[in-house]
């Protein structure tokens, strides 16, 4: 039993933190968000570090590392609120790697790992995938309809950019024009995607917690720092509990992906439910503690808050994941026997 990173994993985390906080200073994130685009040089640098294919098999141009390593990167990308088409490409890579056949893997994975032919994943509801990250610049789109997956060349889809509250990430509405190339069982990939986005949410929430604690120490009202008042400090303590719980659960899911696959479905849905809720609860507390300044466009908090809210809805909401937890745990007439 060792619920901590190995030395190699610590090194990945340190490198990622150092690089990403350098590259994505708050003013850079603001500039990109306000312009509504990415800087291609940013993504290229991450590709050169091998991050885009960190989990992709070596034979397809990746590093062949696991979901824990991926989660470490995702948390740091969330922490720095990096505006890069990374999560979308990771999601497509996980789908092709874990639900694709040999031919699909050799066709798509090298481009995903090299960043030359990026992909994305969309969830189809009532015939259309309404919120697909980075679809407007992707080469392939994986569409999930009731967990049946199909791969589509982006050129064969109707892709219409949509403006969301999260300006640090681009989104589009996608509908397929053809049947697409079917994937096999998509659940193992879906669960890994849930772990990855949960890790991003943990990073976003961690950043908001740190900003809030720093502000509560500094901001004085009635002649003392507001963090000395329990109405404020207890809110901060609750934020810490939520962030740590989401982090523990997310790391468990990431670990289970390779080490204990039978636990992965439950762990992944627990992680995404908790991380979605933690992301939003921490965001709303962060704004409340910041007071009026937190409500201004000029303050950076809103970029994090909006990312947290949109991530919460992406790849299954907390409600949907709790529903899956209930079924997997044997609740109700139609449920399988308890795990």
């Amino acid at each position, binding site marked *: 039993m*060792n*619920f*901590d990173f190995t030395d190699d*994993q610590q090194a990945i985390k340190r490198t990622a933190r150092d690089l990403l906080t350098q590259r994505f200073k708050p003013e850079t994130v603001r500039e990109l968000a306000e312009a509504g685009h990415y800087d291609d040089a940013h993504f290229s640098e991450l590709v050169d570090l091998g991050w885009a294919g960190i989990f992709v098999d070596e034979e397809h141009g990746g590093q062949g590392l696991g979901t824990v390593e991926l989660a470490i990167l995702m948390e740091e990308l969330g922490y720095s609120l990096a505006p890069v088409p990374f999560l979308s490409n990771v999601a497509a890579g996980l789908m092709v790697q874990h639900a694709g056949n040999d031919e699909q893997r050799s066709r798509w994975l090298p481009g995903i790992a090299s960043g030359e032919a990026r992909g994305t994943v969309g969830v189809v509801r009532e015939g259309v995938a309404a919120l697909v990250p980075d679809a407007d610049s992707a080469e392939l789109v994986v569409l999930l309809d009731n967990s049946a997956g199909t791969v589509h060349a982006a050129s064969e889809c109707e892709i219409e950019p949509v403006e969301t509250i999260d300006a640090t990430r681009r989104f589009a509405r996608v509908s397929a024009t053809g049947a697409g190339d079917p994937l096999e069982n998509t659940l193992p990939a879906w669960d890994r995607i849930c772990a990855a986005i949960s890790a991003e949410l943990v990073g976003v929430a961690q950043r908001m917690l740190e900003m809030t604690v720093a502000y509560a120490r500094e901001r004085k009202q009635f002649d003392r720092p507001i963090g000395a008042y*329990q109405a404020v400090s207890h809110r901060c*303590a609750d934020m810490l509990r939520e962030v740590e719980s*989401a982090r523990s659960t997310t790391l468990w899911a990431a670990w289970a992906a390779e080490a204990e696959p039978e636990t992965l479905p439950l762990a992944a849905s627990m992680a995404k439910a908790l991380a979605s809720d933690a992301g939003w609860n921490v965001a709303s507390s962060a704004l409340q503690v910041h007071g009026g300044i937190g409500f201004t466009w000029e303050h950076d908090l809103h970029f994090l808050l909006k990312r947290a809210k949109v991530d919460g809805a992406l790849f299954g909401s907390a409600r949907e994941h709790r*529903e899956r937890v*209930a079924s997997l745990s044997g609740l109700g007439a139609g449920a399988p026997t308890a795990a």
Partner: protein
Amino acid sequence: MDLTLSPNEQAFRDELRGWLAGNHPGEEPAGDEAGFQFRVEWQKRLHEAGYAGLSWPEQYGGKGATLIEQAIFGEEMARAKAPSTANVIGLVMGGPVVIAHGSDEQKQRYLEPILSAEEIWCQGFSEPDAGSDLASLKMRAVKSDGGWSVTGQKVWTTFAHVAKWCMLVARTDQEAPKHKGLTYFLLDMEQDAVQVRPLHQITGEAEFNELFLEQAYIPDENVIGGVGDGWAVAITTLMHERAGLGAAAAASVRIALGQLLDLANERGVGDDPIVRQRIAALLIEVEALRLNAWRGLTQIMKTGVPGPEGSVVKLQWSAVNQGLTELAMEIRGEEAAIKESDWTYRFLRARANSIEGGTTEILKNIIAERVLGLPKLR
């Protein structure tokens, strides 16, 4: 990162499971006296196998178990629904304090009877006017011939009616600042100057007692640590030996949650979307509690010190246990009013969870000040 047990940890667990299979004493008999005797016998049996002083160093009759092994022990005991030991306060707090702060003579005198349950221990910390603000306690110890004369009142003293020794914190210096004037004593409960009165709680039982001291006598050799060092010694009592508790608490809450799930299915509300959401939320919170506890253990093993992060696990546990007993009451509807029901009892008992062992508010203060570094209000 590896969340599986190492071969040694696995061997420890398997050996323990095997031992439990052959030695589990079964259901505890009804009645206070019979129940207590049953727990004494159970502890003797654990002691013979070396499990009583699991965390204690081997030289003091313990097993010298690692924190992970202690957590495994807690989980397995919860899973097997094994009874508690008769001398839990002596094992978890008394012994470790004597080991950490006691003299050689004190170790010689007190440790073995704790392990064998021949001498039961209780803890005299809280007072009617000193709950969360423990250091403001008023019980007064005055120097007398070869010892101390102690007068005052304690409250929430579990096991006082069967205890031989009480870990008592009293004020020995009225002039010193409140944290500095305290001394940690071992009080012999078998004297007329000590009176014990049961304290009935909202469940109707009396798990706790009030303790009245009127010039009780404590000889000098029963001071633990030094005169005036009581606060530091008391803090170690509270900080140490809680390692396995988080994992054990998570295991027993998980069992209760399984029963709640069965209850929901039996009552035909397992497909009710609101019930499903609420049970799922509890299942997730229990898993987070378990994982936070194990992650905390890994940290303690690396840094060597129990950190204030344990406070997160404690407040999380109390919220989950209260939440699940409340939901069970709701599902049972009118039937929840009936007194002789385990769920109803658990519902009432859980009300204390967010107060006992540090109120949720005090734990949040600890997290805010010592984990997040926010300024103190005081």
